[in-house]
């Protein structure tokens, strides 16, 4: 994948915040499942079904270790971060929120951590509040603390901003919320690929991430939930696999985690995700964080040397996401020109329109690095950007 040429040039893949590339072992695991292990889980008494069930359940154990959950049944498989957040909004929010009560988010959320709360606010009469960000793209923690009040019932917070790269001081923020007894959901879509996650150390109550951004297949994600909360929540969807007993009048629910996994799940993808997380573990998240930080620092220096480049997101604590604009050139034109040099970046509002509004730009260009990127690729990005600038002068 990464060795191919596009438009006659070597591919430089810098759109990792959108989705990561997949290691061979992950692709092999998914292929092997479909070529020699495919069966439905939790039903059949035959050999293949038993094997598929074991592999599926083992992957849950792998995820639990990856995020240091107390128990594997606190790990719910979803189709991605978005579904995890929607699950909490609909199952927890819709059940427990009353008119006038508040949900607190921040101005730097991805749309997937805004819209599910807007929907539940419409359904319950609850109110959505958002803490401000400053011009470096950092969360204004005073604004956050001020907005926490006796009406706040839930905080939903991004760990690493997809548009700005900002790493939020989530442990501190969770502490502030917990001091008032308010549970916190962390959107870990962008942190899972880059930072070690430990739900016990962070002390978050919910955490959602997507498999495909952390070397896994698309169509699978994880929602971690604190057992006591998950136990109190009603099912999100009804169907097979999530019941204890069904009559035509009434059903009772299966214990965790099956209560939240109605229907045949994405078995191959879950198995692929388990392999991906093992792979990440072998590379080592400490090493990944360190190398990506070097790449970010180097790419930032190179781009800073190009006149007209403005960085959007200059937080002190940043993951390897580089959002920028180039004076006189629209981000989409940057994207198309870089593509012609084989460089894949994202251009647009990054599903974070409130962030774009804060910075007064309709869109940005975004280069996002993974541990398999190199300094040479950062050079190609910078050199290609210089060509764009010349062309549009």
């Amino acid at each position, binding site marked *: 994948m990464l060795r191919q040429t596009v*438009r006659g040039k070597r591919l430089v893949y810098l759109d990792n915040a959108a989705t990561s590339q997949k290691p061979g072992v992950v692709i092999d695991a998914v292929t092997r499942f479909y070529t020699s292990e495919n069966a439905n889980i939790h039903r059949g008494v035959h050999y293949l079904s038993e094997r598929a069930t074991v592999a599926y359940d083992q992957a849950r154990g792998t995820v639990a270790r990856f995020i240091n959950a107390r128990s594997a049944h606190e790990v719910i498989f979803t189709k991605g971060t978005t579904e995890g957040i929607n699950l909490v909004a609909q199952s927890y929010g819709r059940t427990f929120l009353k008119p006038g009560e508040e949900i607190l988010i921040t101005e730097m959320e991805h749309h997937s951590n805004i819209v599910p709360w807007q929907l539940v606010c419409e359904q319950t009469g609850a109110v959505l509040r958002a803490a401000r960000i400053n011009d470096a793209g950092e969360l204004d923690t005073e604004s956050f603390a001020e907005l926490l009040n006796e009406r706040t019932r839930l905080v939903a917070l991004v760990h690493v901003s997809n548009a700005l790269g900002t790493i939020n001081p989530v442990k501190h923020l969770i502490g502030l919320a917990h001091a008032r007894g308010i549970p916190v959901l962390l959107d870990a879509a962008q942190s899972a690929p880059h930072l070690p996650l430990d739900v016990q150390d962070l002390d978050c109550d919910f955490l959602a991430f997507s498999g495909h951004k952390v070397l896994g297949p698309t169509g699978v994600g994880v929602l971690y939930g604190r057992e006591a909360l998950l136990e109190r929540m009603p099912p999100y969807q009804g169907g097979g696999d999530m019941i204890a007993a069904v009559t035509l009048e009434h059903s009772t629910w299966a214990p965790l985690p099956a209560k939240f996994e109605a229907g045949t799940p994405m078995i191959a993808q879950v198995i692929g995700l388990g392999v991906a997380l093992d792979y990440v573990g072998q590379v080592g998240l400490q090493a990944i964080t360190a190398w990506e930080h070097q790449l970010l620092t180097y790419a930032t220096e190179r781009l800073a040397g190009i006149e007209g480049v403005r960085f959007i997101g200059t937080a002190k604590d940043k993951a390897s996401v580089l959002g920028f604009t180039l004076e*006189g*050139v*629209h*981000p*989409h*034109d940057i994207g*198309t*020109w870089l593509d*012609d040099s084989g460089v894949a970046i994202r*251009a*647009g*509002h990054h599903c974070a*329109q409130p962030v*774009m509004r804060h910075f007064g730009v*309709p*869109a940005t260009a975004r280069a996002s690095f993974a541990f398999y990127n190199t300094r040479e690729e950062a050079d190609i990005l910078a050199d290609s950007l210089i060509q764009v600038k010349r*062309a*549009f002068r």
Partner: protein
Amino acid sequence: MARLSSLYQDMILDHNRSPQNYGHLENANRRVEGSNPLCGDQLTLWLRMDGERIQDVAFEGSGCAISRASASLMTSAVKGKNRDEAEMLFERFRKLVTGTLEQSESETMGKLAVFSGVSEYPVRVKCASLSWHALKAALDGPDTVVSTE
């Protein structure tokens, strides 16, 4: 690079840098907001209609080079034309940017022919078409909001 330079022809870069008919139109009797929600492009188009004739037209907005240059060249192309002529031109433009225009028709496109390279970039067809969709909406009614979605 050949593919790229056929998209970003010099005329497109020039019109992006200094678009024609840019700014608020006084005495307009039609105004339309157009947007491309996926990429955030947005544009306001003003028309002064004299019966069926487009007496004057102007636009403002933010967008990529393709969408700005397209709005600039569209406004120049339809100014003074009547409604039917403008709609026919839009139909031909739509075919041009999707690569389905007959050779014989392409010779009638004038400066708009610089957008032929767009047909190689399916995702940019919306950029090139936004101002035309706004024009169509403005011809159909006085104050509307249109979107490429």
